[in-house]
Structure formats: structure tokens, C-alpha cells
């Protein structure tokens, strides 16, 4: 890997299938390899594995650790006078971990304006809606109180995502937090906001139905 690349840390490591898919499409590895996912001897582990698969910036899957690791990378970039950015994707359940709030505390102290964290605020986790399991509202105010540069966006609108990422380059001396409001299973009628789909693979029929629904929506705009 080239040294000046931006880093992406998937702190919510269980989301790795989509990361692998994006990497395959970007040419990191042959697309056929996707089918080894979660199978024995595969580089594509059920949760990201940096040693087996060094394109992954850090191993993750135990929630709550990625933001600290991203912070370390951001400090190293500063020490080395490098311009690259560190992006870190967090779950809205994941941020219940105390370690997240330790980084919430420390990143502003180190003035890590090269660190961009994104919360996938889909309101869901395994045991239910985040508001019922362990509510973190008001989320934006919490991060602001910790002295982060915070934006809140609709995480399904590409222009909002891109604008937010651009804006995150402007504010100096503060780490950036983008709260991306999303819906779990967005666009698939039988999955949308349905907690029972966490970590469940669709049957081939369900998969086809889901792809059709998504295609219909995307094509209709």
C-alpha cells in the first residue's frame, strides 16, 4: 500500500462484507474471491483481519476500538507532516462503548483536524432500537460538547455525504464528526428498520427480491 493514501477504519467491523465488495470493485482483489467470505482459509474473514488481508488498515470486530486506532493514525500523520486523512466509520450502538468517549475526549486535545469520524446512525443494534437499549440522544450536542466539529446529514443522500466530507476539510484544529442518519436495510421493504435482519443473510429468493426492489428505486430515481 502506498504511504500517502487516506486511511479508512471500519470500526463497526461487522459491516465488512460491503467493504470487501467495494474493495473488489476498486480492484484490490479479484471479484470471485468474494465468495470465500467467512469460509475457512479465506482472507475475507467474518470481521476485518489486517494480518491476513493487509489492505484492511486495522483489524476490528470488537466494537469501540476503531476510533482510538484511527486517532493513533491521525497523530502519526501529524508527526510525519503528512496530508492524508483518516476516516473512521462507527455504529450508533457501537458508540455506547466507553472507549469511544475516551477518544471523544482526546482527539480534540490533539487537534486532529485530519480525523473524520462518521456515525452510521441507523437507530438499530442487536437487542433493539438504540433509543430503547441505551439512548445517546442528543447525539450532536454530546459531540459538540466534547469540542468536535459536528455535521448531521441524511446518510442516504450522496450529495449530502460528499458535501459533508468536503466541509470536514475546512474547519481547522478540531476533529470532525459526521452523524449520518440512515435506515437499516434502506430500500428493501421487508428489511427496512427491521432489527431481526441484523447479521442475517437473505435466502436466494429474498436476495433477488431485494435486488429487484433496489434496482427499481434507483432506476426510477
Amino acid at each position: 500500500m502506498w504511504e500517502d493514501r487516506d486511511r479508512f477504519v471500519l470500526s463497526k467491523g461487522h459491516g465488512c462484507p460491503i467493504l470487501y465488495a467495494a474493495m473488489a470493485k476498486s480492484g484490490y482483489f479479484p471479484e470471485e474471491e468474494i465468495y470465500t467470505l467467512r469460509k475457512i482459509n479465506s482472507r475475507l474473514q467474518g470481521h476485518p483481519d489486517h494480518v491476513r488481508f493487509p489492505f484492511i488498515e486495522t483489524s476490528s470486530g470488537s466494537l469501540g476500538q476503531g476510533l482510538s486506532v484511527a486517532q493513533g493514525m491521525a497523530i502519526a500523520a501529524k508527526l510525519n507532516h503528512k496530508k492524508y486523512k483518516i476516516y473512521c466509520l462507527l455504529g450508533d450502538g457501537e458508540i455506547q462503548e466507553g472507549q469511544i468517549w475516551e477518544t471523544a475526549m482526546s482527539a480534540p486535545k490533539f487537534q486532529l483536524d485530519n480525523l473524520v469520524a462518521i456515525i452510521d446512525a441507523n437507530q438499530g443494534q442487536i437487542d433493539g432500537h438504540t433509543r430503547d437499549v441505551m439512548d445517546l440522544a442528543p447525539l450532536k450536542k454530546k459531540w459538540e460538547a466534547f469540542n468536535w466539529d459536528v455535521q448531521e446529514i441524511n446518510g442516504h443522500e450522496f450529495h449530502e455525504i460528499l458535501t459533508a466530507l468536503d466541509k470536514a476539510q475546512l474547519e481547522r484544529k478540531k476533529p470532525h464528526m459526521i452523524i449520518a442518519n440512515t435506515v437499516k436495510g434502506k430500500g428493501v421493504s421487508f428489511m427496512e428498520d427491521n432489527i431481526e435482519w441484523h447479521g442475517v443473510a437473505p435466502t436466494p429468493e429474498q436476495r433477488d427480491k431485494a435486488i429487484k426492489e433496489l434496482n427499481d428505486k434507483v432506476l426510477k430515481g
Partner: protein
Amino acid sequence: MTKYLKVNPSVQKASRTAFGETLVHMGEKHPEIVVLDADLSVSTKSAGFAKKFPDRFFHMGIAEANMIGTAAGLALSGKTPFLCSFGCFVAGRFETIRISIAYNQVNARIMGTHAGLGIGEDGYTQMALEDIALMRSLPGMGVLQPGDPVETRKMIEYLSSHHKGPVYVRLTRQNLVSLFSEDYEFEYGKGVVLKEGKDIALLATGGVVYNSYVASQTLEKEGISSTVINIHTLKPIEEELIVHTAKSHKRLVTVEDHNIIGGLGSAVSEVLAENGIGTPLLRIGVEDIYGESGTAENLYEKYGLSINKIYEKTLQFFQESNRPGR
């Protein structure tokens, strides 16, 4: 040999499921039982208790350290907390357990589920492989791992009503074959002899007890007479039983779905060394490496815990060490 042996491969249940069911029954009898979970109640099977006793169940969110500390406070106030998560996540908060629970010597029951390679496809990050080692190192911490659903139920009943002090219990995601009759009596700290032989003894714990038992039956066909002992209490380990077994057999084998460092293999080695016993020991388990994704079956085959692999390794160990000149 135990009189409760009733191996029935057609009756299977995960030890986490047996735990969840028993916990509901115990909740009725023992109002002091409270349950905490860190966003895995569906998986750890504490969800049944949550449904039945919502006032005594606490969703702590994905915040294991906070759960551990809270359980300690509850226990210091007379409650019997069962705190539940995957073994790797809860044992991973070692230092919080070390002080708030262990050093305080409170009646907390730390439930670590999805132990070992048996979790399968989720891979290493969700796979407790060092939890026994960690928990065993804490003075006064009981470390338990049931080998079948009946034993799980009896163990949970015991921990709900009698036991004093902190305990770590290690449970499986995968189904376990029923080994015991319903009237099985759980004895804390006592190994359970499932089969008696004279050449070689297999000491197994948790989800691999059944595999060891079947492997041992196959050894008989090679003319090797083998003993099988289920070690459900890893700490305090039953020293006399191990000493006696080591002295009465030519070879010992330990079998565990855990790193061979710090688990059953280590516990047995310590007893042998301290008693000056030189019986050769083979430690079957995860050989000081990280686990990976795969089906539990594939992983057991690759890492040497399938019936077939336990059989092969034991046979080879017996034959090698029986060669003249060794």
C-alpha cells in the same frame, strides 16, 4: 465412573440455551437474581429472563465494562447478578473484572458465551480463546465450563442457589450432545469420569467432551484402553483426581476449545509438575494461534478438535511415546 452417564446423540442443545432456560426457572425461585446483558441477549439467551422479569433485567448496551462494574455494585448490595456477553468481550474487560468483581469477591456470575472455535464463521474477533487463561489467573474466581445441556442446567441451579464468590462460566454457541441423565448431580470442583480404561486418559472440557468420548471409543478398536474425564470445573481444579489418573495411566491427553496456554492443558500440567509426576501429556487445543472464520466443523477439523482428529492425535501420541527407547 459416574452413574449418570446417558449419552444420547439425538438430544442436543447449546449450553447457552440450557443456561437461558434455567435462568428463567431460577428467576422465579430467587428474587435476588438480576441479569445484565450488553446487546447480545438474543445470542446469550438471557432474553428469556428479560421477557419474564423485565424489572430485574438490564440492557446495558454495548458497554461491557460498565456492565461489569454495575454487576459488582448489585452484588455488593445483596443481589446475585448474572452478567452476559460473548466470552471474548466480557473476559476482554479483564482489569474491570479483576478489581470490581474478583478483588471484591462478590457473588457475580460472569457468563461468557460463544466460546472457542465453535462460534464458527464470525471468526477470531468474536471467539473466546484466552478467557479461561485470564479468569483462572484471578484468585478466588471459579472457572466453569459445562459439557452438555443437563450439566449446564444443574450448574446454573447450583450457582443460583448455593455458591459464594465470583464465577466465570463458559458456554457454547453450538449444540452439545446430551451426556447425562436428568437426575445428574452437579458437584462443584469435581471431575466426572465418563469412561474407565487403563492405557491413556483423556481429560476434556466443554463442547469437546463428547468428541473426546467418541474418539476414546474408537481407540478401543485399536486395542487402546482409554479413560475419559469431563472437567467442568477448571478452577479450583481437582488435584487428587488428576494425580490419581496420571499415576494409573501411561499417557494423558487434555482436550479443549481454547488456547493450550492457560487452559485445561496448563492446569493439568501444573498439577503434574508440582506433584513430580512425569506421565507424558499431550495438550490438544488451539496451539497458541489466532482462530479464523469457517464452519465450526471445518474449524474443528483444521485445528484438531473433531472426533477424527482427537482420535488420530491421541493414537499417534500413544504409539510414538510407546516406542522402545523413549
